[in-house]
C-alpha cells in the first residue's frame, strides 16, 4: 500500500510487529508486520511460515521475511503457541506489502500470558516511536 497506515485496533511492538486480539476470542492473537516494516524491507519475495504448534516467545524471532536484498527476523509481540499460519504467503508473499494488516497476516497464536499485552503500544504511541 502506498501510504503509511497504523490501524487503531491493533497493538504494536517496537520491532515493527502488530498483534490483533478480537474481543470475542481474547485468548488468541493474529500477528503480522507493520506498514513501516514492509516499507523498510521493500518487496517481500519469500516467506516460509513456521510450523503450527511452535511455541513463540515475546521479543524473540519466530519467522523470517526476505526481500531481494536481505533477510529480516520477525519478532513475536506476544508469547504463545502457533495455532494457524498464513499458508498462502508461501506461494505469494505479496500481501505482506500490499495488505500488511489484512491478507498479509503471518500467524495466529494462542496467547500464553495475557498480561504481556500491557507492554505493547497503541497506534499513537507506535507512530510517535517511529518519529524519534
Amino acid at each position, binding site marked *: 500500500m502506498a501510504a503509511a497506515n497504523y490501524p487503531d485496533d491493533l497493538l504494536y511492538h517496537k520491532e515493527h510487529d502488530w498483534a490483533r486480539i478480537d474481543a470475542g476470542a481474547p485468548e488468541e492473537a493474529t500477528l503480522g508486520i507493520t506498514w513501516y516494516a514492509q516499507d523498510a524491507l*521493500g*518487496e517481500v519475495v*519469500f516467506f516460509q511460515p513456521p510450523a503450527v504448534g511452535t511455541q513463540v516467545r515475546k521479543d524473540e524471532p519466530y519467522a*523470517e521475511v526476505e526481500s*531481494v*536484498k536481505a*533477510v529480516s527476523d520477525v519478532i513475536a509481540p506476544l508469547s504463545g503457541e502457533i495455532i494457524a499460519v498464513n499458508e498462502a504467503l508461501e506461494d505469494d508473499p505479496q500481501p505482506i506489502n500490499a495488505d500488511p494488516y489484512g491478507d498479509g497476516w503471518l500467524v495466529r497464536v494462542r496467547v500464553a500470558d495475557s498480561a504481556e499485552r500491557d507492554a505493547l503500544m497503541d497506534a499513537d504511541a507506535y507512530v510517535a516511536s517511529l518519529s524519534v
Partner: protein
Amino acid sequence: MSLRRTPLYERHAAAGAKLVPFAGFEMPVEYEGVREEHMSVREACGVFDVSHMGEIETRGAGARELLQRVLSNDVSKIALKEETGGVLVGAQYSVICAENGGVLDDVFTYRLDAERYLTVTNAANHARDLAWFEGHLHGISDVEVIDRFEDYAMLAVQGPRARELVQAISDTPLPARMTAAVRRLGGSEVLVCGTGYTGEDGVELLCAPEEAETLWDALVRRGAAPAGLAARDTLRIEACFHLYGNDLTEERGPIEAGLGWCCREETGFIGAEAVRAVREAGPRERMVAFAIVGGGIARAGNEVVGGGVVTSGTFSPSLNVGIGLGYVPSERAQPGTHLEIDVRGKIRDALVKEKPLYRKGG
C-alpha cells in the same frame, strides 16, 4: 569517518533514493524499488552512478611494463587504432594478484593513448591498488602513476536500449563492445566504454565530475531509469560477474574463481608462478553458480553442507528464485550437481547451474 558523496548526490536525494554507506561513499541503493530497476535494465535501459569507482592512470614509455607486472592479463593486447579525430582503444579485464596468487582487486584497463592507460578500480581497493602500482615501479624507466580518482565521474548505462539512448546524444557512432573512445555527448567530452556489469549491452561513461549532472539529466530525460546498487547486485549475480570482497578475496586465486581466462602467466605478472601452479595442479575448489530448488534464498556466508560457502546470494528478479555464487570442492562444481546449503539453520536444496544464470532470451 564521514562519508564521501559523488557529484550526483543531489540528483539521488532529489529522486528520493534510499542512500546507504558503501565503500566510504553515500550511495543510492534503490530509487523505485530493486525489482523495477532490475527489470528496466533487462528490458529497456537503466543508468547507474558508479562514480565511487577509482581510476589510476599509468603513462610513459614504461607504462606497459608496469601494467604487465601488476595486471594478470596481457596488456600488450589492448588495441589502439587511429580513427577520425582520435583513437579507438581496447578495454581489458584483469585481476591484480599478490605474490601468493591471492586476488587483490579486479579491474578494467582502457588505453587512452599510445603510452597512457586508465585502470578502473573498486572503490574499497583504490588506495591499496594505487600503493601497489607505486610500490612496483622499481627498475622501470619513464613511467608515471597518477591517481585520477578526483578527475572522473562514472555512469553505467545498461540495457537493450542503452546504446540507442546514448547514441542519440553522441556526435559520432559509439565504440563497439570491449572498445572505448572519446565522444562528445551533449556538450561534454566523455570516454565511452563498451563495457558493463549487468549482462546486458550498454556503455560505461567516464566524464569530468562537473559534467556528471548534465549527462545524467540528459540520459534520464531520454528514458534511462535511475538504478541503484541493489539492482546492480542482482543483475551482476544473474550474469555471474564477481564482486570483490565477496566472490574475490586475497584468500583465493583467480583459477578457483573461474578467471583463468584473464591470466597470462607468460607475461610474468606478480603472482604468475602461484597462479600457474594452481592451474597445472587443478584447484581444490571452484566458484559455481547455483539456483535454489524449492524456495528459500541463500545469502553470502551460508555454508554448503560437506564443504563450501556461498559468497553472493540473492533473489533473482528475472528468474524468481534464490540464486547465488559460491565456492565448492572441485569435484562438486559440475552443473547439475546437487548441493545442500545451510541457510540460517534450514537446509535448502540447490543445483549447480551453467554460467551465466541469466542469458538474454534464455
